[in-house]
């Protein structure tokens, strides 16, 4: 029996959709522009705020130096691991700069630079990667969530926090960072869905750096862009050149403004590139060629801004030197502080598992105490 033969199926069959079928008509405006948004090197750069851009430049130079110093510390065995953001500094810094003091940043393990640019002490930001504790700072004090190692699991936290803040009547926006690989995780999907349904004041920034460790984007997703994923959840998707700090800052600012004004979440895909390996444990030459890396080096976020600002007379040699000196001073202090052995108390292992220690943990703490005492006496 075909549909036409169904009893009662006449000309009017399916003439009215069932009540639950309500097609959205606003899908098209949610679609990202086909080309990533750019400012540097385009006529739009004429409207740049010189003060903001000089600050961005200083932060970029400092961020590049921070990356170099952290990588060096890994080679010296001072850090257990460091996931570099060389090439991605524009995203990290713009993410930190667009937030107000009361806003929250939700970083992944790669985003220590964003935390530092937000004002966190670099040593506190690197504690996890040094290995003396998991989170080296009080998240509430800095409004920076703990660096998340599991992929995309911090995104639903950002949604929940933003939702809670709105329920309490507070003006708080949450900005969550995730990589291209993280967009394949279930938590990415659930977070975006919750955010859109709740119209939570949250912004998702995907730093598409080309590879999830070794797996290229083409093997990660069949979507035209990662920004397209927004449409299915009912939020706008934006595509931006992730190496153009002016563009990233503008797109993020707009999304943050929208969220703050009650307009709901936005998904932003910043197209960038990880110049260095995933971490020091990775051999990037196994999955990509030099030509590709060199091409991206020619689109360097620090140089892009430096060229624009110099050409416009907003930055001179003295300004460049000043930024370099400040970065060098930061690196020297960081090096010195990281060379000091962290003070560890093994008894900390039993602290803060529960508000009140359980009997079981008390017994185990006593056992370790006795072992430590015996070690001391021998």
């Amino acid at each position, binding site marked *: 029996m075909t549909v036409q033969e169904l009893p009662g199926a006449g000309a009017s069959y399916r003439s009215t959709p069932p009540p639950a079928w309500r097609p959205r008509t606003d899908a098209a405006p949610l679609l990202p522009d086909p080309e990533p948004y750019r400012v540097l090197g385009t006529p739009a750069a004429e409207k740049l705020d010189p003060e903001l851009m000089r600050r961005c430049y200083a932060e970029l130079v400092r961020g590049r130096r921070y990356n170099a110093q952290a990588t060096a510390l890994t080679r010296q065995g001072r850090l257990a691991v460091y996931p570099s953001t060389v090439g991605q500094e524009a995203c990290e810094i713009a993410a930190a700069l667009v937030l107000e003091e009361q806003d929250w940043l939700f970083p992944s393990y790669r985003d220590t630079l964003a935390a530092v640019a937000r004002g966190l002490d670099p040593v506190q930001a690197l504690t996890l990667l040094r290995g003396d*504790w*998991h*989170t080296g700072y*009080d*998240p*509430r*004090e800095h409004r920076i*969530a*703990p660096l998340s190692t*599991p992929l995309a*699991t911090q*995104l*639903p*936290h*950002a*949604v*929940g*926090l*933003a*939702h*809670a*803040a709105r*329920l*309490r009547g507070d003006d*708080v926006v*949450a900005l969550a960072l995730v990589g291209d690989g993280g967009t394949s995780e*279930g*938590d990415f999907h*659930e*977070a975006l*869905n*919750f955010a859109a*349904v709740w119209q939570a004041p949250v912004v998702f920034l995907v730093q598409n750096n080309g590879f999830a460790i070794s797996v290229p984007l083409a093997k990660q997703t069949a979507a035209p862009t990662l920004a397209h994923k927004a449409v299915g959840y009912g939020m706008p998707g934006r595509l931006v050149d992730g190496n153009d700090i002016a563009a990233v800052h503008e797109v993020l600012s707009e999304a943050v403004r929208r969220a703050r004004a009650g307009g709901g979440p936005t998904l932003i895909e910043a197209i960038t590139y990880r110049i260095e390996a995933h971490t020091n444990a990775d051999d990037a030459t196994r999955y990509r060629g030099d030509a590709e890396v060199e091409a991206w080096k020619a689109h360097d976020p620090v140089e892009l801004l430096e060229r624009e600002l110099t050409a416009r007379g907003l930055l001179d040699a003295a300004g460049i030197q000043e930024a370099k000196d400040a970065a060098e001073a930061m690196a020297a202090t960081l090096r010195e502080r990281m060379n000091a052995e962290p003070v560890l108390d093994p008894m*900390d292992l039993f*602290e*803060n*598992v*529960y*508000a009140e220690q*359980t*009997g*079981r943990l008390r017994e185990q703490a006593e056992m370790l105490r006795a072992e430590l005492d015996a070690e001391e006496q021998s």
Partner: protein
Amino acid sequence: MTTVAVKPATMAQALGRAMRDAMAEDPTVHVMGEDVGTLGGVFRITDGLAKEFGEDRCTDTPLAEAGILGAAVGMAMYGLRPVVEMQFDAFAYPAFEQLISHVAKMRNRTRGAMPLPITIRVPYGGGIGGVEHHSDSSEAYYVATPGLHVVTPATVEDAYGLLRASIASDDPVVFLEPKRLYWSKAQWNPETPAAVPGIGKALVRRTGTSATLITYGPSLPVCLEAAEAAREEGWDLEVVDLRSLVPFDEDTVVASVRRTGRAVVVHEANGFAGPGAELVARIQEKCFHHLEAPVLRVTGFDIPYPPPMLEKHHLPGVDRILDTVARLQWEN
């Protein structure tokens, strides 16, 4: 002095009342989950909460357990006390990464700066004729995760008292609700509920001298019935209700077993590496010289939860408990 009439109430009503009272007293308490709002939950445990406190405080969420618990983490980070419903035991599994990687560890990761006062309600266990994925006893997964408290009530009084204690706790609590006891009744006064011991305290539900049955949640009524039946065989059984699996009240268990010299652990969950394995190990360590017989277990079989028409063969029943108790007549 006026006396309020004590009426029969079900465990389901006591659980709902606990959330209602917690929400009324503390505006930071939020109930959330699939179907908890308009419908009042598939078991009607949250009935009336959305009406009384509004949809912002009793929220129907999208159907996504990782998202529900993940959002609750963020809400707790901002100072709320989320009470999350997982609807059915086996539906909680998508949320395990959030539970284990974040909920259980946040206090520790942040050196105490960011405790997460989240209560995760998990209706668990069999005996209600549910089809597959609706009857798992998943407590072994929870108790194996440091940083979580795991509690389970077996009485109407405890359903109220333990849930209030869980919501008030500054640590995350996995609150296991024995769903086949939802409709069990007791004389209970919702206006002035009797105070019960909080998280971490076991209770001797029946005193005895011949042997101790150690149990919790859905197996408590079965053990009490077995203890009554055992009198005919000349056994005077003590029954300990753990109430809290983490922390585990070793003192009460050890004191009881030292008194009786014999013990049987009873639970629905699979025996292999189940909670009973840990309990037996602790009893052997602490009571070795007091024991007159090996400590035995009566548990569910080591099989995936069976289809409803066969579950009666899997679940520990009175006969299986009595047969096991008979084996305590140990001769070298």
